[in-house]
């Protein structure tokens, strides 16, 4: 099985981003080296939101058109989204410990992100528990849509609740508040991890197609 052009591009982009973040981006004066976790943490959060947002859109499409391709897309995007959310939930505490003095606090953004992870892990478990294909697609589409409703609350949680988590420094109405070198590294990392999401999604979708074909062939025998 040859790797796709997209996979190769994603691996090269992520490798280049990590090299730039580690060796060619300055340390932040107050937070020190731990601040570099930012270049993994924030893009992983963005990709997780993108992945679950697309799950919701594909799920609405499935409920409307009953097209199995949309169900497979939602299934694939949800699994990849869980991977990225896992990275968010691991890198966040590792950044929080040296800066806040604690790995975890039950504030709104952290707690809601954990709930988001639970919902989509539940989504994957639900899919595994239902054998009937159309019932599985329908039930998981509803859960996929409801889960994504958390995303705006998570993004706005720093405005809505008192939280330790800092305010957005890039995705906000005014100009980004980062030095140019750090902002460039951050934007590159957003692009490269989005590319990695696309490569994972494509491979996971292809797996779903081949699995369904194999199941259909087994049923026909």
């Amino acid at each position, binding site marked *: 099985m040859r790797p796709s052009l997209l996979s190769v591009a994603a691996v090269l982009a992520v490798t280049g981003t990590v090299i730039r973040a580690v060796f060619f981006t300055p340390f932040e004066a107050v937070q020190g080296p*731990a601040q570099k*976790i930012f270049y*993994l943490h924030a893009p992983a959060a963005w990709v997780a939101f993108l992945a679950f947002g697309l799950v919701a859109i594909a799920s609405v499409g499935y409920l409307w058109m009953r097209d199995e391709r949309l169900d497979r897309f939602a299934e694939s995007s949800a699994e990849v989204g869980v991977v990225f959310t896992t990275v968010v939930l691991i*890198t966040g505490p590792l*950044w929080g410990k040296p800066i806040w003095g604690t790995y975890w606090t039950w504030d709104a953004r952290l707690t809601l992100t954990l709930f988001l992870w639970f919902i989509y892990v539940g989504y994957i478990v639900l899919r595994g528990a239902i054998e009937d294909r159309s019932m599985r697609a329908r039930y998981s589409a509803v859960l996929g849509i409801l889960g994504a409703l958390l995303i705006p609350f998570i993004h706005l949680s720093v405005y809505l609740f008192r939280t330790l988590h800092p305010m957005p420094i890039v995705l906000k109405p005014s100009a980004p508040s980062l030095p140019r070198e750090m902002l460039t590294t951050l934007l590159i990392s957003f692009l490269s991890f989005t590319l990695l999401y696309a490569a*994972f999604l494509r491979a*996971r979708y292809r797996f779903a197609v*081949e699995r369904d074909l194999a199941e259909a062939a087994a049923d026909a025998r």
Partner: protein
Amino acid sequence: MPDNAIYYHVAYSIALGIYLLYGISLFVRRSRLRK
């Protein structure tokens, strides 16, 4: 500047390890299906 590089090394190792393992798992699952 605070000396907290260990957290960033651990975070990068775990995060990149997760991505690598997931990539391998996709490859293995597709390969198994084709056997």
